[in-house]
């Protein structure tokens, strides 16, 4: 494990139990409580193909409920979760274009899609693009700390997509702002942890190298700024994005060298889901947890195979139930409840593994990173069947909101349906400590979920 210089953080213990010391800067002295309370984190966990309703939604009352087959794996952390029923995907329910894309967009942004003019084929359902902003990106706008190196991160447990498809990712800021997940652990390691770069030895030479890079970047920035002045609106936007990215790199170079964080070991290359899905997923979870623990970012999304579930075939991974085809194919066949149930429970089990990874990072007050991280598990669809219904939507919350949200509940809105906009708004307010009154398209939002906060 290598140490890399990073900006200041709250006091944390790494997986090896070694305390990582920080200089108590003057600004922090008066806010020991804030340090103990910890910075909030948010993870958007996206899997596809919907659920089989009768085996997914719990039965019982708010405090006393049973978890059926698709989510029994979550029993381990039952008291750190909130289950829902009766949530409709109002904005994603287009009669003509529903299905994966239309529902997907609406599900996590509360806004219907637009048909993108950029796509050549006029009738292609793949023209659907988000119009609004996804929950995680809106949260990132508020949660981003000055010391973060990344506004947000997007990781994937999936095969690298090839070719082009106008399907969309879990994170987006609008029609042209799609943020794709990175599936390769080694690539993530290289970019996020700077390939394990260290300046522990030979600080002087390293500092000089840093300064040189920053100066060159300054110089380059000047070129982009000069060019920007001559451009039309569309192109200005592109250059602005590029400039922002350069500034982010500069931020990384400017990071104070006094603190340190335990960086995971460098992953091997060529890791794919087919080789060892369990090991690969855990690796991504560990990297994600490390990135959050090291304050590289406060917001992330994890795409579990993405839309259509990547049509991944779980036959080598799921024990006890025979899997006869790819996830997407199965989701069309209404007779495949046992298989879809098993697949969703496998994903649920992986969510507990992600939670384990977060829980390994303990705070000085006895809590853990899991307590300050809220995970929203969402699906592009509601029911997995030939009709691809987008309601009721299978949302699950996991983790903790720094103690500010009561976990271990089942909120059943079946008799008084709530739109997913209301759920997104409730989560947004809880995580960012806001009091907003609407989220996404206001036509579909009536306010926060009753009894949520």
């Amino acid at each position: 494990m290598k140490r890399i210089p990073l900006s200041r953080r709250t006091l944390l213990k790494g997986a090896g139990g070694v305390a990582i010391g920080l200089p108590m800067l003057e600004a922090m002295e008066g806010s020991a409580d804030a340090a103990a309370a910890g910075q909030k984190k948010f993870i958007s966990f996206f899997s596809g193909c919907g659920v089989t309703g009768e085996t997914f939604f719990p039965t019982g009352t708010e405090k006393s409920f049973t978890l059926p087959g698709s989510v029994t794996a979550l029993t381990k952390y039952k008291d750190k979760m909130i289950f829902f029923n009766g949530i409709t995907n109002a904005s994603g329910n287009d009669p003509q274009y529903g299905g994966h894309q239309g529902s997907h967009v609406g599900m996590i942004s509360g806004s219907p899609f637009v048909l993108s003019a950029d796509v050549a084929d006029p009738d292609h359902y793949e023209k659907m693009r988000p119009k609004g902003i996804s929950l995680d990106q809106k949260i990132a706008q508020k949660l981003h700390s000055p010391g973060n190196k990344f506004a947000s991160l997007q990781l994937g447990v999936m095969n690298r997509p090839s070719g082009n498809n106008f399907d969309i990712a879990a994170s987006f800021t609008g029609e042209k702002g799609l943020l794709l997940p990175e599936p390769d652990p080694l690539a993530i390691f290289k970019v996020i942890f700077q390939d394990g770069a260290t300046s522990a030895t030979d600080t002087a030479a390293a500092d000089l190298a840093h300064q040189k890079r920053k100066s060159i970047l300054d110089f380059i920035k000047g070129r982009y700024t000069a060019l920007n002045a001559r451009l039309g609106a569309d192109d200005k936007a592109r250059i602005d994005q590029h400039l922002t990215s350069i500034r982010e790199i500069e931020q990384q170079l400017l990071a104070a060298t006094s603190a340190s964080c335990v960086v995971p070991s460098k992953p091997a290359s060529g890791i794919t889901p087919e080789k060892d899905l369990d090991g690969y997923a855990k690796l991504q979870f560990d990297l994600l947890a490390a990135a959050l623990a090291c304050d590289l970012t406060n917001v992330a999304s994890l795409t579990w195979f993405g839309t259509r579930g990547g049509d991944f075939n779980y036959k080598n991974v799921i024990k006890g139930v025979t899997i006869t085809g790819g996830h997407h194919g199965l989701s069309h066949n209404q007779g495949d409840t046992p298989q879809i149930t098993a697949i969703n429970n496998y994903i649920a089990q992986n969510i507990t593994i992600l939670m384990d990874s977060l829980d390994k990072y303990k705070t000085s007050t006895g809590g853990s990173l899991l307590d300050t991280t809220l995970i929203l598990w969402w699906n592009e669809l509601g029911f997995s069947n030939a009709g691809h219904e987008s309601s009721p939507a299978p949302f699950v919350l996991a983790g903790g909101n720094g103690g500010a949200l009561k976990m271990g509940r089942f909120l059943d809105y079946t008799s008084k349906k709530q739109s997913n906009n209301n759920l997104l708004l409730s989560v947004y307010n809880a995580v960012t400590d806001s009091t907003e009154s609407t989220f996404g398209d206001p036509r579909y939002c009536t306010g926060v979920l009753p009894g949520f906060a």
Partner: protein
Amino acid sequence: MSKITKELSLSLFLFLFIFGCKSAPSRPGSMSGGGSVFSADPSPKTDTSDVIIEASVTPTATALHLKAVIDATAFPRLSHREWENSVRDLLQLAAAPGSSADFTPDSGSTLFANEALSLDVSSTLVANYATAAINIGSKIAHDKVLYSKLIPASAPAADGMPRATVIVGPLLKRAYRRKPTAPEVTAAATLFANAKTALKSSSGDAAGFSALIPFLLQSPYFLYRIELGSSPAGNISTLNAYELASRLSFALWESIPDDSLLAAADDGSLLKDSIKTAQIQRMMLSPKAKPALEYFNSQIFAVPTFTTIHRSDKKWPATLGDAMVGESQNFFNDVVNTQKKGLTELLTAPYTFVNAINAPFYGVTASGTAFKKVELDAEKRAGVLTQLGFLTVTSDDTGSLLFHRGGLFVKDMLCGIDLGPPPNVTVDTKTVYETQRKRVEATTTSCGGSCHAPLINPLGTAFENYDQFGMWRTKEGTATINAASSYSFNPERTIDFTNAVDLMSALSKKFEMHRCYAVKVVQYLYGRRENLADTKLINELAQASLDGAGTRDLFVLAAASAEMTVRPSTK
């Protein structure tokens, strides 16, 4: 009765994503840290003095009719292939650096990963560029042999501004693909000259290059193909000579213009048809044109997928994927570069290239790893689609996959359909059929009938004489194979065929087949999807191809057309 119980494959088409820009909102930066380590910040505060040579040619009637040409942006970034070649040529390296293997991959809606609209720049990619730029700069700065190539003989001997100015000038021009302005040269020279002290180095040149190269490789004028154009006439502007030079060299070479092309742009002569034509011919004769031609055909005929095939059958050699790629590359080179032929030959040629690995599957013998041309039985083999690669990538351990063969062919090579399967499909995996053809035809009557019956099934059926190893067969189990069917372009134009060889012969005489190839030429050389305004050009290319024009001829035609000289006016 042979049992076929494998499932219908619903995942006919590749699972795809679009890569988008990471648009983090800009925050007020709390950027501490001192000024430039290179002493006075050499970047001028207000540098709006970039000089663009005005086009001296007014738009012609032809250009004016292209008002409908649609581009979403004035300039795309370099595709990764273009980036590699451009770095190689700019810095006079022996080979491309290979750094783009670590970049966020290119994608797009065409087969060529150079669709301008899709070439977004995420912050991950900006970080990739930065890392690559620093590494390449460092590698060159540490090797006097490498950087000496970049120092003109006329450079004054002593370190300092005069030497730096002579060094940076030509590099800026090649990197930016235009004459740099005086302030740009001064700024870059200052960066170079100050590096020796700033970096505490004993070598002015080494320090200079270690600062200059990362700067060049991250500059917007290097990474983006800037086209600001001039002389707007309604919706369109005419490119100036430098912009035209870039268009031509990125189209035909996937790289920056060389000094000869830049010289023709310096005096504007490139805008004259005769000079432009001569330059295009010169470029096609250069060895730098071959990788582009090979890439073009390889993408259309799915060659890179050949090495992704996984088979458990012991009969399948581990190196067959590579052998099939080598076979295709040799085949394309022979047809396109040696014989100067095109689509018709590619589709009907009764020969291929074999070595010890792939020869047995054709029923011929060969030894060693080098490829030799071999004539095949013209009754059994005709062109690239009856070669092993296409046939095996559309099969699996259980057998040939009729849907995949028909689907891939009609989608990518015939431009017949562009859609995926519909969402609500129920699958019958229980009934047993005598042959795959019978099963397919029985199960795709109602649902999917509009795509399967007239388009996918007949084309897939034609290839049933080739098993999952691409080997010829006349029986499937105990049943005799019937590969005859008919394919309709529209109700009035139907072709009947007895098998794949017959099909290739018939299709190679059809306008629609060549039209699809022509569309691909436009997509590749122009880095965008075709649109209505391209109709005239596409039809010209299609007719030429139908009349026997080679791929090289089509490239020349497309490069020389009026469309290459214009772009939409900036808003």
